[in-house]
């Protein structure tokens, strides 16, 4: 099996297991208030981290500040005026592409 196919097969199995672990073990139970309070904050914490990560991650790890940051600033402005999702991501791409030409 080639490295590419081995990667696909193993990642497939691991991904299924990751997603199923929580629902199988704690599925259908009601959680104490304090646990629910923590769970409610997992989404904002993860999403904010993903914004930072996807804006700054360099090829092969580490931080690289590049034109993506320009795109994200424009996206933030679009989000703030309640632009639809498609407009937000399109504006980010256009602003980033333009910045790459200009910088």
């Amino acid at each position, binding site marked *: 099996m080639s*490295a*590419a196919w081995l*990667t*696909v097969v*193993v*990642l*497939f199995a*691991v*991904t*299924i297991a*990751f*997603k*199923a672990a*929580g*629902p*199988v*073990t*704690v*599925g*259908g*139970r009601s959680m104490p208030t304090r*646990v*629910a309070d*923590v*769970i*409610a*904050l997992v*989404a*904002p*914490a*993860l*999403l*904010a*981290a*993903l*914004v*930072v*990560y*996807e*804006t700054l*991650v360099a090829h*092969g*790890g*580490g*931080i690289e500040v590049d*034109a*993506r940051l320009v*795109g994200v600033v424009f*996206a*933030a402005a679009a*989000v703030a005026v309640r632009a639809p*999702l498609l407009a*937000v*991501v399109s*504006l*980010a*791409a256009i602003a980033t*592409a*333009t910045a*790459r030409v200009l910088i």
Partner: protein
Amino acid sequence: MLAKPVMGALAPIVMSVSIFSGAAQFAALSVLAAGGTAAAAIGAGVLMNARWLAMGFAVGPSLSGAAPARALRAQAIVDASFAISSRGDGSFDQDRLVGATLPQAISWIAGTIVGVLWGSALGDPEALGLDAIFPAFYLALLWGELERHGAVNGDSKRAGVAAALGAAVALVVMPFAPAGVPVIAAVLAALVGLKRR
């Protein structure tokens, strides 16, 4: 379209169907493209997708039915559906979770097929600014999540604090941690929920 020189035509398409995670697929691909081993590529993909382990435990209590049915429904957990189905009070709408994932799966797989078959005609994805789509997408999801917290709890202050802390943790961990780890580490920011209101 990034994957074809490294993986051939079929493997990236199968990858999109089976793994369905941009972040994990790109992480694994970038290792293979740099000449890394399958083990290193798998490690990068696993770390990237470990955030779904955390999301699974968050969504778990909201899923009903027998264990196999819950495990199956859990496969609909992806970033956007997790955010969209979140009610902001720690519970999740399981129908929205599945309903939000189906159209995404179709467009993700179709996009991969287009990229593999005709990607070279589109040109360099970075010149088109396509890499900025991911952070912009997550930013829009984050905004919606903060608004829901505001609507449910009367104020979105705690969610805002968790978001700011999560972003800070990711930023601090990024320079020295391997792919994906900064995002998982940011889950710790949710512990501000332990603070009494």
